[in-house]
């Protein structure tokens, strides 16, 4: 009887499906796009499929709002829909939407097959959304793999280009390599606690002093996640992969999978309340931002420069993780979440400009090519300037508040040296962003660089990104409040509630 009841409990209810509605919708649209691909006329397919995919993201966004009305656990405690997960789900979907918009034209100029492209983005988002809501390590793993594999493929989409395939290969091999570490960590964690459910693990770790195995498991999981978020010393893949991958996809994979990975990292660090993560995170943060910024100083390829910049930003973001006392945790979490959002807004925008400007075959990606852009295309230049200023962290832009929150969180935790390293780094970093601005406005073009007229898709994408960047820079309150709310959700799971939600021991287990 009890077994039956237990089994009844594990049968998904309607509300369970509501909770994963965004994922379902995205998958459905992905399949639609995939199926339609061979059916529609090839000339028209680019735009049609893109619009369908975009529509999918819009519907998914609406459904996110709907799903948010039904917070709770679903599917036998594999996912939890709370404001934390909604935040990240929403974020990755928005990123996907903007990337899809900015890809319309890119598809045409690069002559890339659209069906798979959009479908992969949509499926990838499903994986990321699941990562952010999953509380079951199996689920996290699957989500991680979905997001990773789709981005591996997307990175190699310009498959006639040696650089693109190389990028894809490096990403794939190193990604799998790191995933293996992560998985090993999960295995050890499972070995240490006997569960793969984060809630259960957290509870077990709370009740008893952490074993050595837990430390080892955490270390290995950090390796895997550190790789995904491009934190030093696991960042080495980033520049190569970003340089070779198609520009809109770089915009996508530097933000969305990263955001999802950060969500997992947040869960692991704060929800599990992993022991001893402090110094590791401290050093990783300091190292990431320093290495990223310093390496970017002499880059002349804009994509590569932005890749290094993304390493640096991962470093800033990690500062928020290095919280010493639990009391400071919500501040750190919300700062990190805000940072993810702000970084997404500005970086997606920046890559939208880069991909538009790159033209067929991604010919124009060096700093030199950008000379005189302020004259030849003031709108592109102005947009890119806004994004770069945001990346520098100049007021009125989201990047400023992002850094601001992170630094103040670090200071709240009394991490004065880390903050100093951070602020000095952001000053150094200003130099190479500034170089792009300088080149665009202050140098005259030495050669003819054709700038394609800005199409509707790119224009919308840019408008959205700029709006988001400025919104976060002028009125960060709303987003921050949501982030804080989410942080509470992530942290404060009443033990009683947790116990009630505990999964039954596996039915097959013998007692």
């Amino acid at each position, binding site marked *: 009887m009890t077994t039956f009841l237990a089994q009844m409990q594990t049968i998904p209810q309607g509300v369970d499906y509501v909770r994963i509605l965004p994922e379902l919708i995205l998958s459905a649209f992905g399949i639609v796009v*995939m199926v339609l691909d061979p059916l529609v006329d090839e000339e028209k397919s680019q735009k049609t499929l893109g619009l369908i995919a975009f529509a999918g993201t819009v519907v998914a966004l609406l459904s996110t709002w709907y799903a948010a009305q039904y917070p709770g656990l679903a599917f036998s405690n594999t996912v939890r829909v709370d404001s934390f997960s909604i935040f990240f789900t929403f974020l990755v979907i928005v990123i996907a939407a903007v990337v899809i918009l900015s890809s319309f034209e890119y598809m045409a100029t690069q002559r890339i097959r659209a069906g*798979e492209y959009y479908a*992969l983005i949509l499926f990838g988002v499903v994986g990321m959304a699941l990562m952010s809501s999953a509380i*079951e390590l199996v689920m996290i793993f699957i989500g991680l793999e979905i997001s990773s594999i789709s981005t591996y493929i997307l990175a190699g*989409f310009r*498959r006639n280009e040696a650089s693109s395939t190389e990028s894809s290969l490096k990403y794939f091999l190193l990604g799998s390599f790191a995933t293996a570490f992560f998985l090993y960590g999960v295995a050890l964690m499972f070995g240490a606690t006997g569960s793969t459910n984060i809630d259960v693990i957290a509870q077990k770790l709370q009740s008893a002093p952490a074993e050595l195995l837990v430390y080892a498991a955490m270390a290995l999981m950090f390796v895997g996640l550190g790789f995904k978020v491009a934190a030093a010393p696991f960042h080495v893949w980033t520049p190569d992969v970003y340089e070779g991958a198609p520009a809109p996809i770089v915009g996508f994979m530097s933000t969305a999978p990263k955001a999802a990975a950060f969500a997992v990292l947040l869960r692991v660090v704060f929800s599990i309340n992993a022991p001893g993560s402090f110094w590791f995170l401290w050093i990783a943060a300091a190292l990431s931002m320093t290495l990223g910024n310093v390496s970017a100083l002499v880059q002349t390829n804009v994509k590569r420069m932005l890749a290094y910049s993304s390493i640096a930003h991962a470093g800033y973001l990690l500062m928020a993780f290095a919280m010493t006392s639990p009391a400071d945790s919500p501040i750190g979490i919300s700062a990190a979440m805000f940072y993810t959002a702000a970084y997404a807004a500005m970086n997606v925008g920046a890559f939208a400009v880069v991909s538009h400007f790159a033209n067929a075959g991604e010919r124009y990606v060096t700093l030199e090519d950008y000379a005189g852009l302020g004259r030849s295309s003031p709108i592109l230049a102005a947009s890119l300037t806004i994004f770069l200023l945001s990346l520098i962290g100049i007021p009125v832009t989201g990047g400023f508040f992002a850094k601001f929150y992170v630094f103040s969180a670090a200071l709240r935790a009394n991490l004065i040296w880390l903050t100093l390293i951070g602020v000095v780094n952001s000053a150094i970093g200003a130099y190479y962003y500034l170089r792009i601005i300088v080149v665009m406005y202050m140098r005259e073009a030495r050669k003819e660089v054709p700038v394609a007229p800005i199409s509707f898709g790119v224009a919308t994408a840019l408008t959205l990104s700029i709006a988001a960047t400025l919104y976060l820079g002028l009125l960060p309150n709303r987003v921050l409040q949501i982030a804080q709310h989410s942080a509470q959700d992530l942290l404060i799971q009443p033990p009683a509630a947790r116990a009630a939600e505990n999964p039954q021991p596996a039915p097959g287990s013998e007692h």
Partner: protein
Amino acid sequence: MISVHLILFLAFGAVCVGGAVNLLVQRHPINSALSLIAVMAALAGEYLLLGAEFVAAVQVIVYAGAIMVLFVFTIMLLNAGEEEKTKGSRVAILFGVPGMLLGSLLLAWVVLRHSGTEAVPAGALPGAPQTIGMLLFHEFLLPFEVTSILILIAIMGAVVLASKPTGPSGGPQRRVTD
């Protein structure tokens, strides 16, 4: 006291380790692939010792079978020859290998310290297909279903990347020679 259980474990284990080392030593990929198949088969044996029947079966069918066939197929397709001895990376040798050694030793130490001499009986946890199936369709329903998307992606990816560059993304093939 040496039990049969232990002997079997050691035998499979020896094959595993031997295969793994052979994988590293062999210069021709096809040999490495065959070593890997040996490792996987032996691992299936270990799984059986632990009672994971379903996993063992899947290991043989999917892993050693399907996946490795794919590997071999690719090796053949690309006509991969013997590995050249190129000087590529000092970092891998100077940092990577010592790092690997250090890491493994530490992990081994941790693992040993953790589980000590606690023994696991043969067939300790019978993972019959039925029980696994129950789990997959109840507790792990969502991951299981989501796996389909994973597979879908993989298929699409394979199609996109491996298909001959024709059609809309055609155009002259650009080769880079360095």
